[in-house]
């Protein structure tokens, strides 16, 4: 579910049909919007794609963000590079939630369903 802290204007947002961030795209128009979207991206357990003002595109996992300094920045593990990369908030133009949200799986529900099926196939206990 999209967190309540998300305050980004509708006209700068493309959201996926389903409830969630996967597939969403944000083009923040103010510092406050940018802060919010970077927070969402930081809490997202999947890769994001950043479109920078330099027109460069970077895809990776945001593992840190430091907003409370004179020049806020985020840190990211790029998808295809071993070294982490630091990117200034000011350089970010668009954030897309392009990777799978690894925390949104249904592994638990699948497992519980399997256990229930196992129970159902057991012979009834004698009284």
């Amino acid at each position, binding site marked *: 579910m999209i967190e309540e802290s998300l305050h980004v204007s509708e006209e700068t947002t493309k959201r996926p049909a389903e409830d969630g961030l996967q597939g969403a795209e944000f083009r923040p128009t103010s510092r406050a919007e940018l802060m919010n979207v970077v927070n969402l991206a930081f809490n997202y*357990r999947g890769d994001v794609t950043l479109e920078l003002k330099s027109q460069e595109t970077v895809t990776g996992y945001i593992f840190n963000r430091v907003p409370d300094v004179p020049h806020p920045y985020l840190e990211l593990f790029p998808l295809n590079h071993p070294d982490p990369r630091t990117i200034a908030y000011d350089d970010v133009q668009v954030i897309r939630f392009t*990777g799978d949200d690894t*925390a949104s799986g249904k592994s638990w529900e699948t497992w519980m369903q399997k256990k229930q099926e196992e129970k159902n196939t057991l012979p009834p206990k004698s009284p």
Partner: protein
Amino acid sequence: MAVPFSQMVTVAGYVISQKFKGVKRYPLVLMLEPIFRCNLACAGCGKIQYPDHVLDRRLTPEQCWAAAEECGAPIVSIPGGEPLIHPEMADIVRGLVQRKKYVYVCTNAILLERKINEYQPSKYLTFSIHMDGLREEHDRAVCRNGVYDVAVKAIKTALSKGFRVNTNTTLFNDAHPQRVRAFFDKMMELGVEGMMISPGYSYEKAPDQNGFLQRHRTRELFTKLLTERKRGWQFNQSPLFLEFLMGKRDYQCTPWGNPTYNIFGWQKPCYLLQDESISSFNALLEETNWEQYGVGRNEKCKDCMVHCGYEASAIEETFGSWSGFAQTVKTMLFPNAT
């Protein structure tokens, strides 16, 4: 005694020396996470949900040793992920043991029998086996049939080879007190040195969001578990922490007691919350606004009674005054006294 005397003396000496030096915040246990990849996907775990390229990253032995030296804690706990997946884990452990750190390798034991010959028994090394209950409960918690039996077999092998072995148990709101007490009997019967128990933390990213204990339920459960406890049960934990879980005493969290280092850096503020990553341990200690964290201060800490936050609080009480020390000794000797 669940913990060797030499370990107790080392930890006591360390804490007393910190107090003597007037250090207000000091670490007790370094939580070292060299890898997040795991071979299980447990219902209550929120630690491993990352993209593959992040799960493929790992700390080098040199990074692990440097973190241990930078932090200075006498104990290093290696959770994960599953540490035994790391191809250099034996090297990491060897280096930590050489530095005279008491190392706890927290493993689900699936790979233990295959890898055990890479390790040497030592008073500094303990395999801490993830066991969340008897066969039915454990296999359900780790979402795979057969893991309990694999772990029991690995425990027996490790014990037969002379390793220190304890168990690490996380409990959720489906825990049945009588079954958990039977589990304690079983683990002690296997011959483990001691057991560690804790309520699970309410990870936002865990697959099962309905199983976490609230504070009052934690106290109810642990009261049922630990009242009239059997003499043979050994807990590898502070006796005052166990009383805290039972609601007999109250603590504020000590998040700096178990600092966490992983592929992202030093994790602020604690093992369970990921507010920021920081490049140095000193910066973590000095730049974190610790008043923002703990029960009553932070919504995310509301129901947390996990050992990584509160064992250090219990240790602080033990060594903070003569009465705290006396309480600890009394509770060790007479755990069932009210």
